């Protein structure tokens, strides 16, 4: 197959499928064992400076924020991160200096809420490198190829655009259709962290609502850390096995973090904390504001439960639960 055009972006997260098979064989235990630990132990045990990390969920939805805060608290450095539509997580991790390389489908913005002042400035000042461009569909297909154990997957987009030129993909003539087709490289990230509704102590994880790309991402990961709203008995999982998006043998650590997506949206549980996100967007316009925010909400609290108290605790979460459940009257009475 002749390569017609090569994207000039840097290839990150690609692992030769045979090397990945070897890694899986040697490192991914098939044993049903208790994987519970603390968030801080999971971060210190699995995440090394320079790793390529990917956060699950989508935008401000179902994001493992306790992991994001802990990575910042432990001052991890030179991390590369997938901007696979990454919003609040990547904004904080770039602003705090933990992440300095990003492959961008969508980053440095907060969707309807506007651009991210902090991470955008880091890119414009040359302190954070955009290693490559890509699209949302192609990023999740990178993970799909990664979970399938194949080196690339064909796609029919990006051709003719600068998004392709700055990507790490290649264009070839398809041997079947004789038309041009984009080959998107597979991706097996060093570290993936995903927040889910429930899991058992072995890591069998269930998601309610859209899975976005977490089915593929979990299976493509070298190391997978699951945080969940609640840890339940194995029997609860086995009662409804069709809800299990991620079975235990993909999972390396499981941690119960109630409200662990705050200030992001946890479907069927609690809505976005617009007040908190708005405060960050306002404060992150200046270096002093960024420092003040991080000192107060990230470095100050020693763990997620202390952070939760700081942002309004159960009372706040109750009001966000009412908004999620469209119970606006009750919210008004809060």
């Amino acid at each position, binding site marked *: 197959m002749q390569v017609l055009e090569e994207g000039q972006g840097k290839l990150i997260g690609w692992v030769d499928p045979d090397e990945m098979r070897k890694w899986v064989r040697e490192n991914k235990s098939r044993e049903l064992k208790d994987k519970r630990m603390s968030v801080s132990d999971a971060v210190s045990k699995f995440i090394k400076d320079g790793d390529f990390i990917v956060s699950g969920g*989508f*935008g*401000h*939805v*179902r994001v493992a924020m306790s992991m994001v805060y802990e990575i910042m608290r432990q001052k991890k450095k030179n991390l590369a991160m997938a*901007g696979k*539509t990454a919003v609040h997580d990547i904004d904080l991790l770039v602003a705090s200096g933990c992440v300095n390389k990003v492959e*961008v*489908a*969508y*980053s*440095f*913005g907060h*969707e*309807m*809420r506007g*651009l991210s002042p902090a991470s*955008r400035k880091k*890119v*414009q000042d*040359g302190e954070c490198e*955009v290693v490559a*461009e*890509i*699209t*949302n*569909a*192609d990023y*999740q*297909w990178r993970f*799909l190829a990664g979970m399938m154990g194949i080196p690339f997957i064909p*796609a*029919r*987009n*990006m*051709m*003719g*655009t*600068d*998004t392709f030129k700055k990507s790490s993909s290649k*264009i070839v003539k398809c041997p079947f259709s004789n038309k*041009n*087709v*984009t080959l998107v490289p597979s991706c097996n990230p060093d570290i993936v962290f995903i927040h889910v509704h429930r899991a058992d102590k072995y890591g069998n994880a269930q998601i309610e*609502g*859209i*899975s*976005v*790309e*977490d*089915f*593929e991402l979990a299976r493509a990961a070298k190391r997978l850390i699951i945080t969940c709203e609640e840890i339940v008995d194995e029997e609860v999982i086995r009662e409804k096995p069709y809800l299990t998006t991620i079975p235990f043998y993909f999972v390396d650590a499981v941690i119960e973090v109630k409200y662990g997506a705050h200030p992001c*949206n946890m*479907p*069927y549980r609690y*809505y*976005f904390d*617009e007040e908190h996100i708005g405060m960050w967007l306002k404060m992150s316009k200046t270096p002093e504001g960024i420092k003040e925010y991080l000192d107060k909400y990230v470095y100050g609290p020693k763990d997620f439960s202390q952070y939760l108290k700081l942002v309004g605790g159960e009372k706040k979460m109750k009001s966000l639960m009412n908004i*999620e459940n*469209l119970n606006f009257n009750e919210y008004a009475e809060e």
Partner: protein
Amino acid sequence: METTYTKTELLAFVASRMLEDKRSVFVGTGLPMIASMLAQRTFAPNLLIIFEAGGVGPKVPTLPLSVGDSRTFYKAVSASSMHDVMSQAQAGYIDYGFLGAAMIDKYGNLNTTVIGDWEKPKVRLPGSGGANDIGSFCFKNIIIMRQDKNKFLDKLNFITTPGYLDGPEGRKKAGLPEGGPYRVITQFGVYGFDEETKRMKLISLHPGATIEDIKENSSMEIIIPSKVERSPEPTQNDIKILREIDPQGLVIGNE
């Protein structure tokens, strides 16, 4: 009684009228969402709304703030995955797509990645997100954006999302599927694309807008046909529904 409305309400209304009943549409947050909801609640009750993060056919209760938020699969027929819906788009299941952009060129190519040099950006924008996917895969794309001399350009410094690329044969030569930009809606009017040249062409002017406005606020040459229509105006009922969809005026409240 004369209907009063904001400029953004007019845009939402005009966008809604481009959709069709019993067709599918890929929507983002903001105006596209509002336009699709208005279409559903007026003339297109069976418009199938699909969100890129996996929400399919929801009964959207209040305006979602993210294309993945729980409102995008509220009472939906399916809450699935990005792989699922992006594959559906690539396989030809999605008729309409909505796009926004910082800049557009005469062939409807869009830039949402960078202002200035890619290596040393003057302003770094969020990038493609799902835009390149929508621009590549949906059959008819509707672009909603503000128009001025710095946004309507002859040529872009960075093409994030394909329109017709470099003209009539552009997409086919590149290997992209059939599809492309269908309409562009700005604060002044509605544009389509000339059948032969695939260049942007004026279709209708909004109330109060003139051909001079169009020319003064563009750095590309727009085809102006001899007959230019007036954009349709919303009725009192359309405005009532729009304000039910966005009661706080998060989007439609903007002038």
